[in-house]
């Protein structure tokens, strides 16, 4: 499975046409997606037209861009011009089509990438499993009986299955990092407020991030670099444009590695801890670091998510609650009833926790943590055992991702491949605005073979 960088090189050198790549991606959706259910829409006509335009540019000697002819897909909460933005819901099915592409979608198209489809997700991004009552579950390409993770599960499964080399998801509490880990690919949640969210359907505005999935770190860095830039329509953007690709192969020497202990190890299955420890060993050890206030931070993120999500859906709760996915509806109702004092206090908890994380980064350059307490669960699994107690599976998959993103630092999920096991994701956490460092560490782990994307068996079977 060539990555996006290799495919773009081949297109730019006329070794393959953009049209052929688009045709292959669309054919792969037809072959593989009936079993995966990663796509809710296929843009065959526009994709073939866009690819033909790339081929014409090459024929005329015009630079087609760094992602020339690379097929990509986006979670179906990204605006795509002429298409209704579903955000995984049924209540938006009759909404008017988007007038223009989301800023980050437009940036990838400008770079020569070809949008081939929209991906399945949890309704309104409120979940960690992509089990959607309206559009069905997305299946993990490594084991069709298991979850692809969520809420960006379709985007991750599409990349893991090799249908597209890169895709876009969003991450509010773990929705890029969890599916990347469960599907065994790379995913980046950039620093909060780093990338434009214009044209991205909001879930929890004060927590939402956009970011890419890829099968190689160089692709992750390339796409992330292309997504950066000012946007007059997003007044919340912060931080300068800082390309990461040029320094990606720079050796990372002498970095101070902290392995998050306490909360981040207490509930994890042994195979998950083995993956974290493999990464730590590859980075010359690392010391155990305790981050204070994690339980409160996770609780605060939980409350803000429920309250903001409930407020967003107030009209639907009043007028058509039966049209909401049962998996989200009850939590939206509950969130809409949460006292305001809790929400205000939760925001103060966020500030305090951010300061605690900043203090930890005075002694560490990166932190390691599991993505989830377990590998991808079975789709029929409803509980998870934590501390000897059975707890509901869906909200607890994110116990390691939710508190970290609450403070807003950049985090890469790297896939660790342990033979005989489902892929295991490990979070590489950097200080705010240090995407360059977390990507360099991920690239180093990839070169060492510690982080590794394994082609899924389902794809091999389908390929015959």
């Amino acid at each position, binding site marked *: 499975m060539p990555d996006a960088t290799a495919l773009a090189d081949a297109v730019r050198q006329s070794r393959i046409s953009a049209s052929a790549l688009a045709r292959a991606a669309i054919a792969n959706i037809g072959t593989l997606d009936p079993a995966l259910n990663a796509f809710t829409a296929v843009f065959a006509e526009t994709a073939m037209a866009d690819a033909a335009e790339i081929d014409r540019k090459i024929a005329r000697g015009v630079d087609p861009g760094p992602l020339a002819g690379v097929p990509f897909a986006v979670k179906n909460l990204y605006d795509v011009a002429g298409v209704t933005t579903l955000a995984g819901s049924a209540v938006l099915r009759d909404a008017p089509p988007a007038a223009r592409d989301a800023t980050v979608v437009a940036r990838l198209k400008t770079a020569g990438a070809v949008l081939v489809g929209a991906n399945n997700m949890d309704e309104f991004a409120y979940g960690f499993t992509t089990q959607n009552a309206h559009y069905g579950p997305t299946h993990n390409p490594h084991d069709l009986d298991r979850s692809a993770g969520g809420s960006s599960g379709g985007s991750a499964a599409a990349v893991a299955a090799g249908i597209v080399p890169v895709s876009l998801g969003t991450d509010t509490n773990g929705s890029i990092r969890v599916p990347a880990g469960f599907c065994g690919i790379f995913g980046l949640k950039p620093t909060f407020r780093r990338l434009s969210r214009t044209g991205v359907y909001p879930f929890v505005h004060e927590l939402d991030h956009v970011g890419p999935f890829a099968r190689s770190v160089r692709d992750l860095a390339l796409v992330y670099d292309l997504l950066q830039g000012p946007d007059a329509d997003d007044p919340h953007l912060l931080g300068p444009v800082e390309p990461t690709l040029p320094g990606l192969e720079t050796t990372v020497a002498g970095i101070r590695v902290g392995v998050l202990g306490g909360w981040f190890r207490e509930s994890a299955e042994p195979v998950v801890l083995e993956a974290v420890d493999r990464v730590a060993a590859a980075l010359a050890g690392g010391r155990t670091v305790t981050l204070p206030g994690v339980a409160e931070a996770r609780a605060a993120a939980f409350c803000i998510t429920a309250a903001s999500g409930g407020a967003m859906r107030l009209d639907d709760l009043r007028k058509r609650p039966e049209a909401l996915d049962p998996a989200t509806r009850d939590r939206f109702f509950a969130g809409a009833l949460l006292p305001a004092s809790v929400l205000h206090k939760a925001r103060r908890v966020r500030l*305090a926790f951010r300061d605690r994380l900043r203090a930890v980064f005075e002694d560490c350059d990166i932190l390691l943590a599991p993505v989830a307490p377990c590998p991808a669960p079975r789709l029929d699994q409803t509980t998870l055992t934590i501390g000897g107690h059975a707890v509901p599976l869906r909200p607890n998959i994110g116990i390691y991702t939710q508190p970290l993103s609450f403070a807003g630092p950049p985090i890469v999920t790297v896939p660790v491949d342990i033979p005989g096991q489902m892929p295991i994701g490990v979070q590489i956490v950097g200080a705010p605005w240090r995407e360059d460092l977390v990507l360099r560490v991920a690239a180093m782990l990839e070169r060492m073979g510690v982080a590794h994307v394994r082609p899924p068996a389902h794809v091999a079977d389908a390929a015959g």
Partner: protein
Amino acid sequence: MTGPAPHDIAALAERLCVPIPEAFREGVADAFARLLEQAALVMAAETTDDPGGDLDFVP
């Protein structure tokens, strides 16, 4: 897990103009109990006296 009874939550919701259909009340009560568990942790957390929190959050 304990929390307000479904009929109490339904009465509160009705008063706030977000009526909960009968069929959904048990599920909402469960979700509300889980939320209260987390809310209790939040309210007990040590924070500064900064007013209100910061919607313009900077990482």
